[in-house]
């Protein structure tokens, strides 16, 4: 397999075949990111996928050789998603950090009356697609700033550090958004499995 640096150098000279080889290495990951962030809007996901590589090709001369191409492409795709959702609709408010979990002094910790544990049945629910569909719906309700971090970390499996580079955030900010996003999704899944 030709080294990535060689493909980038050839692409910068206008070699379309070299750039196509780079596209092949990253397109599935970029499309998956776009598909998950643009949940329920397949046409938007297709646009983000195509625009990411068209933008990259156009701006490849600005790409620094010591940078990571995957990070750069994820950043372009994330920006394209972000701009679409900023234009499209008012963002809902994410519940404050401790809102879904407020049983201090309010319930008997021994009975756990206010908290259902559906984790034991989660595998069966996942097999039935209940949880997968609920996650897709919940992701679409999550503000895009949080959704991008959750998708990059938990679906694309980037590290906190890699996600911070893509989003141009501190690692602390990534962790904070990830945590709030996960709490929001847990809350939504809890409602989805409610009898």
């Amino acid at each position, binding site marked *: 397999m030709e080294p990535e640096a060689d493909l980038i150098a050839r692409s910068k000279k206008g070699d379309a075949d070299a750039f196509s080889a780079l596209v092949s290495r990253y397109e599935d990951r970029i499309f998956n990111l776009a598909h*998950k962030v643009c949940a329920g809007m397949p046409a938007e*996901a297709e646009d983000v996928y195509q625009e990411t590589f068209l933008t990259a090709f156009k701006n490849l001369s600005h790409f620094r050789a010591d940078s990571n191409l995957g990070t750069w492409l994820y950043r372009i795709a994330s920006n394209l998603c972000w701009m679409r959702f900023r234009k499209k609709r008012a963002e809902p408010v994410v519940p404050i950090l401790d809102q879904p979990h407020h049983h*201090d002094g309010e319930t008997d910790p021994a009975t756990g009356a206010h*908290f259902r544990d559906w984790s034991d049945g989660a595998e069966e629910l996942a097999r039935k697609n209940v949880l997968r569909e609920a*996650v897709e719906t919940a992701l679409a309700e999550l503000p895009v700033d949080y959704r991008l971090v959750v998708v990059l970390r938990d679906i694309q499996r980037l590290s906190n550090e890699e996600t911070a580079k893509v989003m141009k955030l501190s690692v602390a900010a990534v962790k904070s958004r990830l*945590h709030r996003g996960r709490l929001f999704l847990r809350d939504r*899944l809890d409602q989805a499995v409610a009898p």
Partner: protein
Amino acid sequence: MKCRDMLKHLSDYLDRDLDPSICRHIKSHMKGCKPCVAFISTLRKTVGVLKRQPRAVLSAGLRARLRQRLSPR
């Protein structure tokens, strides 16, 4: 450690990215707090479901359309 104090550490706890002393406090707290056990279990499952979301399939037609747009005219 109170429930509310524990909550802010739970993602780091699940990611095993937490100071060992705080981990010990969380484990100790969970021994006596059934709601927190339920909360952590369902949060862990939520992250698990996210990680197992099926990958989106890129169609051959869409791949071809991109190549067409990238090809020199």
